[in-house]
């Protein structure tokens, strides 16, 4: 059997305001979307909220709307739908590729874009049973005093391992938030902080209602490395979006997941603009990535590999997107 779930109440609000109000109620509440991240964590005793707020009753969360300016995706849209929606696929290939790369078909039928963005960070010392964590010594992220990954430090290095975030960051997406203080918009890149214990820049009652992506066409793609080809979180995942003018890069955004406590946009890529995609340029991107990723011993696969492979994936994506750009120029 699996360990019993801790007791909780389930609410099923029909409107965003009601959900946020419930989320702000004292006593500890959690939003429940597909549950594919949350329920596993509940069973392992990683958290024990008194109330689960099931978002499945909010109709507009399941909408995808495409206009000339933007694509608007409700936060409850499933990954299975993202993977098959023709408009999403045509406009935002990186997003589709990322959605298809998540877990396995059964998960994708339930899992949502909102849940994927807000999924917890992961660590081999943390994603274990209660018996395991107690026997091994409770770590910082579970409320203990020590980090088993970097015992000399005082921060948690658990890795953000969602596949969609880098695609959305590379595609310059914006998240719409409803919270106790009203509505606001945050660039997806700004949703996160480099802290495995508190990686989300959101309050507990903040609810992602939708994601908006600019509609103007860019070339984009997502690649992920993992031990097996389904049912596996990214050891490293890289999204690249770019545009070219007469064969030279006019825009480049590279975002990475799986290596740090947050998904992040690779910095200092401006130096690569205005140039053709060639070996030298690829080598420079490789260096930039290797310098900026910070994989730690949070996975059973060695951290050094995650660094190298993140760079290799970035290089490969840029090469193939750059090549197809060149081909379309010619």
């Amino acid at each position: 059997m699996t360990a019993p779930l801790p007791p909780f109440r389930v609410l099923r609000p029909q409107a965003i305001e009601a959900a946020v109000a419930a989320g702000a109620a004292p006593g500890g509440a959690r939003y429940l979307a597909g549950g594919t991240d949350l329920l596993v964590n509940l069973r392992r005793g990683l958290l024990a909220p008194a109330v689960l707020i099931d978002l499945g009753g909010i109709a507009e969360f399941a909408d995808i709307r495409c206009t000339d300016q933007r694509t608007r995706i409700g936060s409850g849209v499933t990954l299975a739908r993202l993977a098959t929606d023709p408009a999403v696929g045509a406009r935002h290939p990186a997003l589709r590729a990322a959605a298809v790369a998540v877990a396995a078909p059964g998960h994708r039928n339930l899992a949502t874009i909102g849940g994927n963005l807000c999924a917890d960070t992961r660590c081999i010392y943390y994603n274990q049973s209660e018996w395991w964590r107690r026997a091994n010594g409770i770590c910082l992220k579970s409320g203990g005093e020590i980090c088993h990954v970097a015992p000399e430090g005082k921060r948690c290095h658990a890795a953000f391992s969602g596949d969609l975030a880098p695609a959305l960051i590379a595609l310059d997406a914006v998240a719409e938030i409803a919270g106790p203080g009203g509505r606001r918009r945050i660039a997806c890149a700004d949703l996160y902080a480099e802290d495995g214990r508190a990686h989300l820049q959101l309050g507990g009652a903040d609810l992602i209602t939708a994601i908006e992506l600019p509609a103007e066409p860019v070339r984009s793609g997502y690649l992920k490395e993992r031990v097996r080809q389904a049912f596996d979180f990214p050891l490293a995942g890289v999204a690249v979006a770019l545009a070219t003018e007469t064969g030279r890069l006019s825009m480049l955004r590279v975002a990475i997941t799986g290596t740090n406590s947050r998904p992040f946009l690779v910095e200092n890529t401006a130096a690569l603009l205005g140039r053709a995609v060639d070996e030298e340029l690829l080598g420079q991107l490789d260096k930039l990535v290797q310098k900026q990723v910070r994989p730690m011993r949070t996975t059973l696969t060695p951290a050094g590999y995650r660094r190298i492979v993140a760079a290799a994936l970035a290089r490969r994506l840029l090469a193939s997107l750059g090549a197809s750009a060149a081909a379309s120029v010619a």
Partner: protein
Amino acid sequence: MHNAPPGRRRPTPAAGVPLIDGIDKVTGRARYTADLEHRGALVGRILRSPVGHGEILRLDVTRARRLEGVVAVVTGEDCRHTYGVLPVAMNEYPLARGKVRYRGEPVAAVAAIDAETAARALALIELEVRELPAHYDTASARAPGAVLLHEDRPGNIERAVHHVFGDPAAGFATADLVREACIDCAEVNHAQIEPHAALAEYDPQTARLTMQSVSQVTFYLHLMLARCLQMEESRIRVIKPFVGGGFGARVEALNFEIVTAMLARAAEGRVLMELTREETFITHRARPQTSVRIKLGLTRDGRLTACECEVVQRGGAYAGYGIITILYAGALLHGLYDIPAVKYDGYRVYTNLPPCGAMRGHGSVDTRHAFEVLLDRMARELGLDPFAVRRRNLLVAPTRTLNELAVNSYGLADCLDRVEEASGWRGRRGHLPRGKGLGMACSHYVSGAAKPIHWTGEPHAVVNLKLDWDGSVTALTGAADIGQGSSTMVAIAVAETLGVPIERIRVVAGDSATTPKDNGAYSSRITFMVGNAAIDAARRLKKLLIAAAAHKLGEDPENLDCLGGLFGSTRATQTTLSFADAAKAALVNEGTLTVKGTFTCPPEAQGGKHKGGAVGSTMGFSYGAQVVEVSVDEATGRIVVERVWIALDCGFAINPLAVRGQIEGSVWMGMGQALMEETRYLDGMPAHASLLEYHVPTSVDSPPIEAYIVESIDPNGPFGAKETSEGALAGFAPALIAAVADALDVDLDQLPATPDRVMDALVARRRRQRLQHQPAGDAK
């Protein structure tokens, strides 16, 4: 002669038949242990040691006992008897006594009215342990001054084996090339899909225990329940429900089974114990981490001259099957090729980790891997084709190996031909683009241990057949069908021998109250032994039916046979008698008929006289050859298996459909071990203990497998059949490593070949090449 294959006269379709319990499984009708009716049963839970090695100073269960809803609590105090599968090495208690020796070892258990209460009760148990230094790897366990896990095992060596056959020194002296390799294979786990579970019921009125469990070996479980609970065997009944995979995970009585029975007796009622996936992994009993140092001698034209092999196995904290595993690892260096001299040194080491045990390909897989990998490297160095090297060293059956193993049938040459041709080896090898490669390897496995573990003088297998007034034939067998299809095999063996359609046969299996004792599903013994016993029983029954039919038809029994369910003369078309009528005739004056068939391995098949010589001995070896095609991504280190061609000599395919399934399953499991499966302990904590972290391949990772059946018709096998479920496994990993070497010229010394290890090897190769290309002066 009963061994003759039935050939075209077979009443079952040539392609084979679906498993007789297949529909129950795919429709969800099949009941596995956790699905059994358990209303009113108490929930059992186990408290496990948080430390890797220590003395139990205090274990106080009073508060747990007092908790409302708790019906029973048991500890090591409640069982002073060890258990274990080998009579010479029973050193484990179902609940720890005195010491704990691995993280996760059962210490106490509760039975409560529900799961929440049981969980709360566990939290109330007070356990105080004085920690001892723990040894999580073999080097530390063998180091001077290491703390002993078991006082009677100096150096933490559970068993050292030293075997020399022939003259290795002389052999190496005649070789043109002598090479050595050190190969490390990670520990793997069966990862059977059904987690462990047991349902035990104790009736205080009759003082009887009924145990239903996931066992592959109900007989051994029965024995250990009687021993640990100090009950008379006759008061215990063991039933095997549907079992969701075994692969060796359940070939010995397991601690949770005995604990469940202890709880049921203490509670005087029914207890259901369902282990979590994590606990199922901790129960373990699988293939140990193994370091192999192997040395081979080869002549310029590929003839093997000698083999020297040292194996160190990280056995975990208790004996289990360990002695057998370390003996198998050496014994099965023999029996595949003709090798003039073999030296083997094996060390089974105690460590503070969950005990290892038997797993598909028991004992043979990691040494076979190292052997084949080194052979492939040496063939490359000599510029020889790997197929040619194998062909140069074939055995000729019948023969006996240096270590006295009988080889009565040998289809390896045919296997080689089949996969060489099917894979297009000759045209393609060496002509594939960079990053793509082909590799091949061979393997073999026993068809049942010729000498069973508990030698009692009984036959190796017994099958009963009941024929009743309704014309139905019920085959009663203790053989545990765990998904491999053994019940279907029994049905076919009986049907073919009787000459009736399979639908007439009903198989009742795995219930000690009704079925004859069977040693269980291990060492691929069932088809060979139980199959022969089933044929024997059917022949006896047929004799009775023919006598009755002859009487009724006024024919000479010599001239009668049963074909397609009709008794008639073999000489001319005469009147016939239906099977049902023949059955009625046979019952006159007799009533319901019960006949018994048996099978016994003759003593000369039971191995050499040297110590441990019985291990590896068998009536027949299966033989396999396979070719693996890979693509390797140089930037990420990822290996993609594109295709596999496998030919297996299973003697004779009694049910070709099931044989293919077993061959594919073995290849697939070999692929898991080769590419990604690996247990990982962090300071003795099982970090891999979920199906997320323990990577078994998914359908996306699985290549097309082309399986070819080779039939060498074994002189002693049932219809000529041998085993078919394990022999193909060990060849996969070395074929894969050879294919990677072919693709990129890298030598991988570690299993599994995960992307990070491939990258490390690629980096090492680049460094090597840089050094080679530097002018000599610069190298310093």
